[in-house]
């Protein structure tokens, strides 16, 4: 079943086109990654799905129903973790979650159970009576998530949930995303952190200038990059290395030395591995290991958009 279906969606802010004729389908059970640099249009797209912004053109379907005619149905089935924290500093963690869950029609004992469940899920049960004022950044982020999941939505949309937090909280959040997914939630996850997306997402869309420029599993995305390869040579000592000489070898594009690792980027179709190894042997540089790197998403992103994910 399609949890989310976006067809030819366009959003303009006066003359500026933030989302440009975008189409996208997300199936039940996916963790779908939205990759894009600042201003790519990720939040704008998400906000239209959540009903926060009106689209200029196109349609959005949640669980098969057009949100234009089934707004309440759509809203009930979506949980959104906004990019900016959206919590009341003067309410305790418990009160925050209870208030928002209460807006979804939960009452009484059921409400209380769900709130506790959500707080437990993000690891804030101990802190449920404390005010978020006194929370660390990571704890606030986790509360921000708890507020979005207590009503058990089918689709959870997380807009950069790990911005500016400690590694421990980040791991916690990544794990909870996986867990939510295992419990049957479909997740849309946007991030500036390639590693995160690579780690948890089953499918990824790269967004640039309001358009999806590539989409697929990470293997599919990496396969897009076929014209170069990366060869990493781990050496015992880099004393006698001459980068310029290596660069002379047929097919080699760039050479970088980082500590004892020589990173060589070369054209894919030229077979020059023997020549490279020969160089190290001739100079009497001991090779400890040598591997051909699979292209990573960072390179894919850079190649496709001409920009780094983070500036």
């Amino acid at each position: 079943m399609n949890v989310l279906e976006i067809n030819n969606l366009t959003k303009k802010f006066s003359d500026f086109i933030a989302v440009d004729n975008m189409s996208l389908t997300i199936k039940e059970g996916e963790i779908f990654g939205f990759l894009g640099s600042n201003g790519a249009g990720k939040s704008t797209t998400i906000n239209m799905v959540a009903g926060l912004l009106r689209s200029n053109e196109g349609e959005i379907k949640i669980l098969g129903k057009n949100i234009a005619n089934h707004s309440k149905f759509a809203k009930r089935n979506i949980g959104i973790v906004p990019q900016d924290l959206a919590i009341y500093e003067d309410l305790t963690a418990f009160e925050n979650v209870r208030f928002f869950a209460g807006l979804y029609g939960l009452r009484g004992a059921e409400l209380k159970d769900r709130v506790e469940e959500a707080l437990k899920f993000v690891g804030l049960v101990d802190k449920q009576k404390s005010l978020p004022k006194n929370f660390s950044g990571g704890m606030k982020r986790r509360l921000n998530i708890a507020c979005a999941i207590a009503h058990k939505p089918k689709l959870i949309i997380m807009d950069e949930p790990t911005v500016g937090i400690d590694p421990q909280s980040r791991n916690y959040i990544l794990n909870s995303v996986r867990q939510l997914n295992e419990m049957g939630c479909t997740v849309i996850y946007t991030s500036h952190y390639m590693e995160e997306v690579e780690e948890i997402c089953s499918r990824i869309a790269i967004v640039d200038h309001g358009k999806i420029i590539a989409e697929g599993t990470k293997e599919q995305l990496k396969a897009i990059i076929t014209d170069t390869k990366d060869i990493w040579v781990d050496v015992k000592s880099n004393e006698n290395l001459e980068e310029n000489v290596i660069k002379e070898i047929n097919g080699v594009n760039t050479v970088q030395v980082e500590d004892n690792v020589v990173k060589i980027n070369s054209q894919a179709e030229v077979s020059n591995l023997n020549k490279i190894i020969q160089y190290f042997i001739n100079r009497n540089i001991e090779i400890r290991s040598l591997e051909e790197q699979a292209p990573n998403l960072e390179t894919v992103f850079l190649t496709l958009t001409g920009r780094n994910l983070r500036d």
Partner: protein
Amino acid sequence: MNVLNIALLQLKISIRDKRTIIFMLAFPIVMMLVLGSALSNAFDNQVKIDKMKVLYKETHNTSIAPYFEQFMKAAKKENIHFYKASDITDGKKAVRQNHYDAYVEVSNKGMNFYGSERNSIESSIIQGMLTAFADKYNLVSQVAKVKPNQTQAVLAGGTSHDYVKEMSLNAKKAPGSMDYYAVAVTTMIALYGAIGATFLLRGERTRNTAVRLAVAPITKAEIFIGKIIGSIVLNLLSLFLIVAVSSFLFKANWGDHLGFVFIILLSEVFLAVSFGLGVSYMVKTGEAARTLILIILQLASFFGGAYFKIEGADGMMKFIMNLSPITWANTAITKNIYNNDFTASLQVIGLNLGIAIVFLSIAIVSFKRREGF
């Protein structure tokens, strides 16, 4: 239910904000205490009611003449002195020139009363007595302020045998400085509800919680109504505490019709909240809305007599004073407390509601149009 949830939320987050408590409770109470006691001397001299002078004209051989004679005698004991006018005297002019506190024409048809606007307390005491007197003798009486062409029938007030005594007891209850400032500061702080209202919905946006409200399966109307109810209840609660403190601790006189007083205050709070909300949608930034409202409130407070009582104002000054909702509420509540006069209250309540609806409509239209929130 959602409305209730949102109203409760609004109450909770406001009450937990220390600034709310300081601003809505501590500030007015301290202000009452300081102004009420610091200015008490000056004040008492000004308001003290000693001798009241009434000019009267009587057509010959009226049937009530003997009773009126009696009435005047009784009144004299309470320090209200009646002076007979000659046929050629212009009674209204004499009052206008402040030679007398009131002027009465007594004839077989009834009584015509002209009270001094300047000495409004005195004139309303006298009016009250005469009304009671007229009631007793089934006289058709007419009352007019010394403001040409504005004649209105007297509302039948409570009658009693000892009308003179009762009314002069009221006279002794004439507002002292604490009584005055209790009312003036309370009506002022009711209007200050406008400040909080500018942040009622804007605050959700700056806090970003607007996003969650907007994605929840509730209607905008529920959010809007819940927020307004929460804000009004909060303001009323604080006014209730202020009135209680001023009444029990400072012994301010709030009269015998507290329910009515609170209905006036409620209408004023409604006006304030709608005004704040309306302006917050008319002005771009929250800071600008706040500043604009603060200036308006300061002016309204000043001309509404919240800082010091403005007496005997005429012309332009009087016109400006009458623009202040604080003046309206003060007048209505004072009449309520001291003369059991509710007509003024009804007018003020109507006026407050009318203006509130205008500002509220502006807010509703803008709120509906806004994307998301």
